[in-house]
């Protein structure tokens, strides 16, 4: 019982990460029908940048080791901010170099170009940081908190709290503010949005910036639980995409739901048979695709003939 409760907590933390990245996929997909296949590499780059930020702030240089007392909450927060800003800029660069030239061309060229962009980012990061994993202690310490007998890491609580807060904020912005409504208008119909006087290209660039920033945020949130490395991104991004498919790529709330669902499935299956985690996720996607190809909360888009 305790083990199950524990798995639920770590599943929720994982799920929060997937949900954030999935939300990033949803944002670019709903505005441009494209998404970044190099998102994982961006996530990893953002994370190692942030970890280095913490090191530099703690006066440890680029390649030091971080002790728990080095990672104060403000250093963590400042680094997070840096990583989010850098990734936002990378997102803009990604849009201009790898997405915009290929929008509307057949053959999914943008899949290849965003993948290529990701590989370039990854190898640039590899040249700077090297392949080994970097350990970053949680800013909240490692003292396990007992909830109903199950031990929960403070970082796990931070992950869940932070991801839920960010998602609630985004959801509110999208539903209540003028700019959010403009973004939804662009997502629904670009021509009609232009007729409202909305600067559609600017909204699209913003979408890519936000999407990448979310990946950076997710990376630094999970790093104290796993580790930070240049290679950490692929599997997170893949599962986040799976989450988006499960929940519905064109529905933001669906993507969040899918994220948490996938996190829980992964951690529950891991409890039972660790090596079946990946397969179970793959099976879940196939099941969803067979039963409801548009995703749990997604809507089917009719193709015009």
């Amino acid at each position, binding site marked *: 019982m305790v083990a199950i409760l524990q798995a639920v907590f770590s599943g929720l933390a994982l799920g929060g990460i997937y949900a954030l990245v999935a939300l990033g996929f949803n944002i670019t997909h709903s505005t441009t029908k494209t998404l970044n296949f190099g998102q994982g590499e961006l996530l990893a780059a953002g994370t190692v940048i942030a970890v280095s930020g913490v090191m530099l702030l703690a006066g440890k240089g680029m390649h030091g080791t971080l002790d728990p007392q080095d990672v104060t909450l403000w250093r963590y927060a400042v680094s997070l901010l840096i990583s989010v800003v850098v990734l936002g800029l990378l997102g803009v660069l990604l849009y201009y170099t790898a997405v915009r030239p290929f929008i509307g061309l057949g053959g999914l060229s943008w899949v290849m170009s965003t993948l290529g962009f990701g590989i370039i980012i990854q190898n640039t990061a590899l040249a700077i940081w090297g392949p080994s994993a970097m350990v970053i202690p949680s800013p909240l310490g490692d003292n396990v908190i007992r909830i109903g007998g199950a031990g929960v890491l403070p970082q796990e609580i931070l992950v869940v709290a932070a991801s839920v807060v960010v998602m609630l904020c985004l959801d509110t912005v999208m539903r209540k503010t003028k700019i959010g*409504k403009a973004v*939804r208008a662009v997502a629904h119909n670009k021509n*009609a949005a*232009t*007729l409202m006087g*909305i600067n559609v290209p600017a909204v699209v660039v913003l979408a890519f910036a936000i999407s990448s920033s979310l990946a950076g945020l997710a990376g630094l949130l999970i790093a104290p639980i796993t580790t930070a490395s240049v290679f950490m991104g692929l599997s997170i991004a893949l599962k986040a995409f799976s989450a988006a498919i499960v929940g519905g790529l064109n529905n933001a709330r669906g993507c969040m739901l899918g994220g948490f669902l996938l996190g829980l499935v992964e951690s529950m299956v891991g409890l039972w048979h660790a090596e079946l985690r990946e397969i179970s996720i793959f099976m879940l996607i196939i099941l969803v695709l067979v039963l409801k190809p548009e995703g749990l909360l997604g809507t089917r888009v009719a193709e015009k003939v």
Partner: protein
Amino acid sequence: MADIPTLRIEALQVRYGAVEALKGVSIEVHAGEVVTMIGGNGAGKSTLMKAISGLEGAAAGRVMFEGRDITRMPGHQRVALGIAQCPEGRQIFPDQTVRDNLMLGAYHRAASAAQIAADLEAQFAVFPLLRERLHQSAGTMSGGEQQMLAIARALMSRPKLLLLDEPSLGLAPLMVKDIFGVIRQLKQRGITLLLVEQMANQALAVADRGYVLETGNIIMQGGARELRRDPRIRAAYLGEH
């Protein structure tokens, strides 16, 4: 009437790949005028409207608004200049409320909340049903109601020129009557209108002048009454000889 027309289009050409949708169209709309553009399906009417709003690029020719060349201006900036369009097929934002749709119409304006609220009231005076549906999501309304919303949304930008692209499309006959009633009211208020329609009779009944577009060319133009009496119009639509 001032010398400078509100809208002046000179020899405009628009292409979609191999297809030449507009083959050198020239028209003028003066302030306070209601001008209609009639023609069958595929004549290029909607393409013309898109080109005026900057949704389609021009291959050649010029689009002038109040004497200013706006041929290369991005679409969203043209709205700020005062060109609003109520597009073909309404194109409201179905997942947003009626109120949000109307507010998006005023998106580019830096007006005070009170001014916007006053403009909302002005729309309700013309379209009382929108007040009742204010917090309903727009996609749940009937086609005719959506058309009303789309016109009101365009008016929220306080346009100097309103482009109406086939407002009667896919509407039941009674609703078409209502829409043309609204167009008459707009005319009475002195709004400059360019109306694209397939319903030639009604469009010419409300317009001052008309153009007839066929396969990308203007083939007839003149006063609305004269056009209305022209037997060729009937022939073009029903294939009578």
